[in-house]
């Protein structure tokens, strides 16, 4: 039940021009009226989980070295993932990878080498 309330709140808040304060007031009134005030801590917990999940799936671009940043951002943008800063991950060896929601674009040398290794050893 808490999950459903949290998901409904998230959807309403995501609408353009949503009044977050008003949403909370309406939620409290609804919970009070239906005698479900004890659900409130659970709803908060679910909201935090949703927020953490959203952060985890936020657009992000990793590059192997700082000098590849600009080009990586441009290429990621062309592929539909727009970010304003990149993180450096030396483990990529060369190239970049970008994630947004469920989408992953991996154009790193590390991925290329692992794929090659799997092909050779399978």
């Amino acid at each position, binding site marked *: 039940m808490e999950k459903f309330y949290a998901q409904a709140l998230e959807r309403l808040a995501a609408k353009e021009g949503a009044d977050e304060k008003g949403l909370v007031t309406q939620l409290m009134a609804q919970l009070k009226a239906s005698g479900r005030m004890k659900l409130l801590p659970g709803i908060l917990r679910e909201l935090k989980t949703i927020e953490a999940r959203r952060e985890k799936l936020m657009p992000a671009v990793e590059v192997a070295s700082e000098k590849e940043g600009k080009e990586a951002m441009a290429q990621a943008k062309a592929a539909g993932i727009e970010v304003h800063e990149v993180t450096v991950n030396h483990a990529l060896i060369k*190239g970049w990878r970008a994630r947004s929601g*469920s989408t992953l674009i991996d154009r790193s*040398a590390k991925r290329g080498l*692992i794929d090659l290794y799997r092909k050779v050893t399978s």
Partner: protein
Amino acid sequence: MESIIKRIEEEIAGFAPKGGSEETGIVRATGDGIAEIDGLDRAIMNEMVLFDPTFDRTLEAALKDADPIYGLVLNLEEDGVRAVILGDSAKVYEGMLVRRVGRLLSIPVGDSLVGRVVNPLGEPVDGKGPTGADKTRPIESEAYGVMDRSPVNTPLHTGIKAIDAMVPIGRGQRELIIGDRGTGKTTIAIDTIINQKSEPEATRPICIYVAIGQKESKTAKLVAELADKGAMEYTIVVTAPASSPAAFQFLAPFAGAAIGEHFMEQGKDAVVIYDDLSKQAVAYRQLSLLLRRPPGREAYPGDIFYLHSRLLERAAKLSKEKGGGSLTALPIIETQEGDISTYIPTNVISITDGQIFVLANLFNQGLRPAIDVGNSVSRVGSAAQTKAMKKVSGKIKLELAQFRELEAFMQFASDLDEGTKKQIDSGRRMTEMLKQPNGKPLPFEMEAAVIFAAVNGYFDTFSPEKTSEAEARLQEYLSREANDVLASIRTTREITETIEKDLRAKLDQFVERTGE
């Protein structure tokens, strides 16, 4: 050395990144072989996913353990998916990257699987190297429709007299074998496999034995027995032992069906034995509860009936246009204390085309195979029974039913009239004749000849207790002296007037020589 380093540096510098976009998710939580995954927005049911252990590691660490772990999507939820892990679930961790594979769970199939022991993913577990299977096939597929099928019309001989005479099975049929533990259910299935050796190679069905939740020692013993009898030449074993994850035990029958369908679609006959579906139901219940699906009766999920019906519906006899192949299903169900009115037995009884009941008390009385003739039935098999078997077995069921009614009076035998005594003796002889040792299925023509002798009173000169012994001698005699008669029954598949005359002559000779 320096030049090598330079060249590698140049290679890296010249690396042109490639790679399109792919759909991924991140493991939110994992435990008990189930992973909750965020993302994977477009994943579909029964799709394979790949848990990638290399994503957040350095290349060096990644190459040490680059083997991907597969998973199967079983729950699609609003905020993610739940998948069962088909491998070492201890290697799956929170935050791990999961990729969509883009295809339904499939297994490699091919003629080269024959003689092999594989797991439900089609990977060899017999230490004989790769299977060489060249095609893949989804383990879940829709059953053939009405127009693609033809009626069951070819017999599948089990080599067990009691079954072939009274509960005949046809190719493409679904016949349930049901009974308590340790009553000989697996033995019936294994004898059926062994008996296919006596079939001509062209029409010999490929046998697939699916061991679900069995002890590995039992499966190993069984494989050794099949190999010993030369039956592995046409048999494939799919094993999901008790020690394997519940997902494997749930998937094993579907893998067996997929392999069987491969042969059926080539116009061949295949027999698949699911040993046993009670354990598969338990594994599915475990998965469903872990996937947080609502429990129903006996805590099984609501779709437990559909689980078995969609599996068994894949057994079919295809029409000529579709190649005329067949897939016969012999599911096994284990009952508790002989109770067949519990949830899973009643479900599977209603799905199948008949059942062979084995009873613990008959087994303990030494009547083996311990088939309860009264409650065993084959709903379509009689249409496939050969004329020879039909002719000789017509009277057996009736005689045995009469004998069971009179059996209660046996203890007052001295007070019984001659007619009743005769009927009881005849029933006892028939019962003795139907006894058969493990691992000794009889070729169809021998079964027909022995049953013919029994129903026509050729064992009447022997005391009922000595019928088994007399039968053994008869078999020996017939294979030595009446090979031509047996061969005629085998080729014509019926007992014509001439064959009957010859057979009677041989039987008279046998009684003359050995009768008491």
